[in-house]
């Protein structure tokens, strides 16, 4: 079976944040939650200053701390070595969030997508409210992607956690994760680590790589090249 990983080329990444936004569209992620995210860091003193923009997502670790911490096996490894989440088993204890060294698991503290039920306009007397927009379009949540629901809850309910699934619904159809597909700079590559001819292995062999917090022993499978 495949062992999926992602390579992010920081030399190509322009820090546009498209991955952050398109992931939300593809996976129906609420406003305050990010499956795909980033951190920035400025180091050095002028004129020798280095600015980093590093995209982040679930590392789908081979030795996933969240899977070990989950008391109900809601976090699990599938046959593609992806770290996935079963919303029907989750009790919302947040042990996985505590165990994850990468801070990429989010908790739904409130009923998600409240914006589309809120009657208050963003700008009073200037814009429509989320509720008006949703009613106008005749949908509970505009831009809802029904494809997401084929392998995971289309929208994760209040009281449970959620996280990046590596777009397993797209992988099942032979497509690449949506952040890879939508990156305008082509900075992301996804593929099978067990296939020596895969693009991810070629990139890793060509450039060498870094991983986030390798010292914690989780064996993350998101690799950063040309940092």
């Amino acid at each position, binding site marked *: 079976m495949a062992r999926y990983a992602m390579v992010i080329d920081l030399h190509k990444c322009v820090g546009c944040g498209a991955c952050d936004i398109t992931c939300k569209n593809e996976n129906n992620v609420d406003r305050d939650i990010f499956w795909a995210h980033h*951190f920035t*860091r400025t180091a050095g003193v002028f004129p020798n200053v280095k600015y980093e923009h*590093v995209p*982040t997502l679930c590392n789908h670790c081979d030795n996933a*701390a969240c*899977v*070990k*911490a*989950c*008391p*109900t*096996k*809601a976090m699990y490894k599938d046959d593609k070595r992806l770290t996935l989440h079963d919303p029907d*088993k*989750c*009790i*919302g*204890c*947040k*042990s996985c*969030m*505590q*165990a994850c*060294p*990468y*801070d990429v698991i989010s*908790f*739904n*503290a409130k009923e998600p997508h409240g914006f589309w039920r809120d009657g208050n306009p963003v700008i009073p007397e200037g814009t429509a409210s989320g509720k008006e927009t949703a009613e106008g379009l005749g949908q509970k949540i505009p831009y809802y992607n029904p494809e997401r629901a084929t392998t995971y809850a289309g929208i994760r309910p*209040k*009281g*449970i*956690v959620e996280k990046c699934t590596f777009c397993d619904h797209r992988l099942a159809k032979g497509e690449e994760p949506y952040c890879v597909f939508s990156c305008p700079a082509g900075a992301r590559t996804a593929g099978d680590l067990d296939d020596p001819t895969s693009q991810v292995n070629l990139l890793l062999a060509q450039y060498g790589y*870094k*991983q*986030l*917090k*390798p010292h*914690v022993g989780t064996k993350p499978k998101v690799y*950063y090249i040309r*940092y």
Partner: protein
Amino acid sequence: MEWHAPWDIRIALDLFLGGLGVGVFIISVLLNVSDKERNSKISLMGSYLAPLLVGGGVLFLLSELGRPERFLSTLYNFNPQSVTSWGGLFQIGFMIIALVYAWQNFKGKTNDSTFRTLQGLGLLFAILIGVYHGLLLASLGRPLWGGGMIIALFLGSSLFGGIALLVILKELGISIGVPAQVRSETAATSSNKGFNFTVLFFIISAVELVLVLGWQFALYRSGTDTLAAVNSMMESFGGLWVGLVIIAGLLIPLLGSLFAIIKDKNSEMSKGLAIILSALVIVGSYTFKHIVIIAGQGTLPLIF
């Protein structure tokens, strides 16, 4: 360090009340076994309080869960790798044993083999829960909670809190649900020999103080992640840590009990001193757990 705390005060209350409960239970059983004549009243009170305290802690835990109605799924979806899973098992097991034990006590059935079996099983589960509290944190791999010392610290704090609570009940003469016969038996026993709370106070406060200071020292000598975590804890909670945890919760009880022992090694502390020191211990125990739980959730910067 950024603050991102998925667990709030309810988890601190769960571990605090649960710790008090198992501490009370352990001391209650020890009193029953070692010095039943003098302490049967307080031992009985302990057996009633233990399930109430642990149950109260579990209620706080349930209120913190996003889906509390699925709590029992920790049993049928049991994950042997998860300390949280084991904790659910231990707490359910303890609650059942402690409730039956309390009932046996209430009914006065304290001399049969069932009672002794309940004591043994209850002690086992109480210790498992006491260990679980620290192990839960240690298993999550966060810098402040790493290493095995947190397990001993939490267990020690729970025991100390349990002793302090029983001392307060003893000194205030609270005996709700204790049969009149037991009350009169206890009053008639005036010997000073037997279980000595003052000596126990002194020993546990000394051990816990050494553990806390040793733990803090070890954190300051650890790697960058741990150092950042302990520095953050002291920046945010330094005053409370030194004032309530170290001085009020450990140092004053240590010196107070030492003073009482020097004064008269065979008798207990005076009523006023015992109540004040015990109250300080309980405040210190809660503050310790609260700070460690909240401060341990700080988010460190992601680094390559």
